[in-house]
């Protein structure tokens, strides 16, 4: 489906493309349906409908000078640019823009790992570098560093961090934006700016002290549209010597509250890596009577779930703990966790799992041998990027709503009930929120739950249900103080609308900034729900 940029006719578009070719060469500008297929959001819930967002063209610069020149060309022609690093955050929009007719600025050619410093544990990369690229650099040089990567790992550290993506190792590395340190940005007028210590010529600590002096604007470039990030630094975890896994189970529904408190303590004290909560009772979900219980309107009571657990001979909850560090430290941390939890929760049990020295062998990565059914994905837990996640993607993909909630058992029970009841309106979708739904501990200090209905390219009716359910989830969650942390362009306005304190003061502040530096909306208008004056009108 060919589209034109806003306010531009075919002749103007052709002139604009000619100017782009003059910057990057004729081989690095694309337009037309066949070439632009790669820039569609393959996971779009509005695939092949009038609502689907399409880019008009794509351009791939080789360096920051070309990025700057492209921005100046776009400014002259008033054409919105939509920057992508590798464009693979499917489920969150992939490479497709907020505004129809935007031109994708594809940073894939800027794929240099500029520095990896083992002794000081940081990396500086360009946006086209993928987690695989960074991992390969570290592996081939034999550096004792660990990359905290998302799953799948084909995205870029720059893009994932700027979308506030998450990982699966130690708490402060899982927050990928939080683990960044220093960035270089092309501003909407084409100027090149560096944040933090990078603003000082000759500074030697750009990737070690994030703030420099004065206000730190780096947060504006995450989920924002105030510039195009062309370099970014990251803190890396020194490769731990040892990896240890263990399982704790607790018998009763209400035990989850105490279990969460203990795990929070372990997490916040830096004693554990990511954890996987679960329920052994999931083994009963093929039983229709049991399914009716855990999906009943108004939620399940403690007594009801405890009775079902007792009848099944299973505990209500489990948590898989992972430890990284020196071997003795992982052992002592595990003993501490076990003693602390078993002393406080009656009937809690502990099981020791696999443990081995790092780096792991291919066999250890590919074939975990746990004495329980484990939800841990071994590679991502050890900072090894993988594409295996795609084996679990059914239909043609999925969309995702990940509400942020407090790290308490009570909050988990409330979300199970509230969103479970709200989603009864969509009976053809799986019951993502039920009495066994456990939280994700991807963020450092909050929980998330997951709602990820599938989409099918050949079934618009199914997609419409998923789309409606997503919007309902955002709305109902916000009524209870649970906000989405990340969204595809098609949902960004709805999500931004829920962050409405004091008559949308935050959005109005963002709009003032946008109007001041990018009134024509050259950089990703609409991203993060921030629209410049030109598009608000």
């Amino acid at each position, binding site marked *: 489906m060919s589209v034109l940029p806003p306010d531009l006719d075919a002749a103007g578009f052709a002139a604009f493309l000619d100017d782009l070719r003059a910057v990057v060469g004729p*081989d690095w500008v694309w337009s037309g349906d066949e070439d632009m297929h790669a820039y569609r959001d393959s996971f779009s819930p509005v695939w092949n409908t009038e609502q689907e967002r399409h880019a008009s063209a794509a351009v791939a610069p080789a360096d920051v000078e070309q990025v700057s020149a492209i921005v100046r060309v776009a400014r002259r022609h008033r054409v919105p640019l939509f920057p992508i690093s*590798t464009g693979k955050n499917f489920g969150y929009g992939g490479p497709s823009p907020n505004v129809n007719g935007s031109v994708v600025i594809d940073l894939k050619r800027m794929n240099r790992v500029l520095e990896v410093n083992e002794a000081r544990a940081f990396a500086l990369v360009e946006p086209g570098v993928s987690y695989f690229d960074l991992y*390969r650099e570290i592996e081939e040089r034999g550096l004792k560093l660990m990359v905290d990567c998302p799953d799948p790992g084909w995205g870029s550290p720059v893009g994932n961090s700027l979308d506030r993506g998450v990982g699966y190792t130690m708490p402060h590395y899982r927050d990928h934006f939080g683990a960044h340190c220093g960035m270089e940005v092309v501003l909407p007028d084409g100027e090149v700016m560096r944040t933090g210590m990078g603003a000082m010529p000759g500074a030697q600590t750009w990737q070690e002290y994030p703030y420099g002096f004065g206000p730190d604007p780096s947060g504006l470039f995450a989920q924002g549209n105030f510039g195009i990030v062309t370099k970014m630094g990251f803190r890396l975890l020194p490769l731990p010597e040892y990896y240890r896994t263990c399982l704790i189970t607790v018998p009763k529904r209400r035990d989850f509250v105490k279990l969460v408190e203990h795990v929070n303590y372990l997490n916040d004290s830096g004693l554990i890596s990511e954890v996987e909560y679960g329920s052994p009772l999931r083994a009963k979900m093929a039983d229709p009577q049991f399914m009716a219980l855990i999906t009943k309107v108004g939620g399940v009571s403690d007594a009801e779930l405890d009775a079902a657990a007792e009848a099944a001979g299973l505990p209500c909850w489990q948590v898989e703990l992972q430890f990284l560090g020196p071997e003795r430290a992982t052992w002592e941390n595990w003993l501490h966790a076990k003693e602390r939890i078993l002393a406080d929760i009656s009937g809690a049990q502990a099981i020791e799992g696999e443990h081995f020295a790092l780096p792991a062998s291919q066999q250890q990565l590919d074939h975990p041998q746990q004495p329980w059914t484990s939800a841990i994905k071994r590679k991502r837990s050890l900072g090894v990027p*993988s*594409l295996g996640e*795609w*084996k679990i993607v059914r239909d043609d993909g999925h969309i995702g709503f990940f509400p942020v909630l407090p790290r308490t058992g009570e909050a988990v029970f409330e979300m199970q009930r509230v969103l479970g009841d709200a989603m009864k309106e969509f009976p053809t979708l799986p019951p993502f929120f039920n009495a066994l739904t456990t939280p994700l501990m991807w963020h450092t200090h909050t929980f998330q739950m997951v709602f990820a209905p599938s989409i099918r390219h050949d079934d618009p009716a199914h997609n419409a249900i998923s789309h409606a359910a997503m919007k309902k989830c955002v709305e109902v969650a916000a009524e209870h103080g649970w906000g989405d942390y990340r969204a595809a362009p098609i949902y960004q306005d709805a999500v931004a609308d829920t962050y409405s304190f004091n008559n949308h003061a935050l959005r109005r502040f963002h709009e003032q900034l946008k109007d001041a530096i990018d009134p024509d909306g050259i950089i990703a208008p609409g991203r993060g729900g921030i629209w410049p004056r030109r598009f608000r009108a």
Partner: protein
Amino acid sequence: MIRRDMLKWGALASALAGAPAAALARAGAGLDVLLLDTRFGEGAAVDMGAARVLTFAGDVTRIWYDHLDRAWRQPGFVVGGITGADALFVLETLAQQQGRKVVARNVLAAVDGIAPVSWVIAPVHPSVLA
């Protein structure tokens, strides 16, 4: 990409399009490597002529990381495969980033809810044409 190559790869995909076991014996010529997704049957024993055969079971990580990522950084290199649609989605997306496209594909009958596809990925961008 020139028309002669398109015709060649189209014919190759046709050769790959039948039942996997029968197709394999005719598929070797013109490919640098053939990928077989063992979820749809084992093909290791088949003589593939000049083409190297790499097998995997749904997860393309190792094959892509160890072989394709390196090969796709250089000009040339034609890859064929009989894989799940899920694996092809991953490979196609990665190939696009390195100037390559699926130039032929045939969807086969689904096995356990996953449709195997026979396909050819070839360089199309001037920067990677041989």
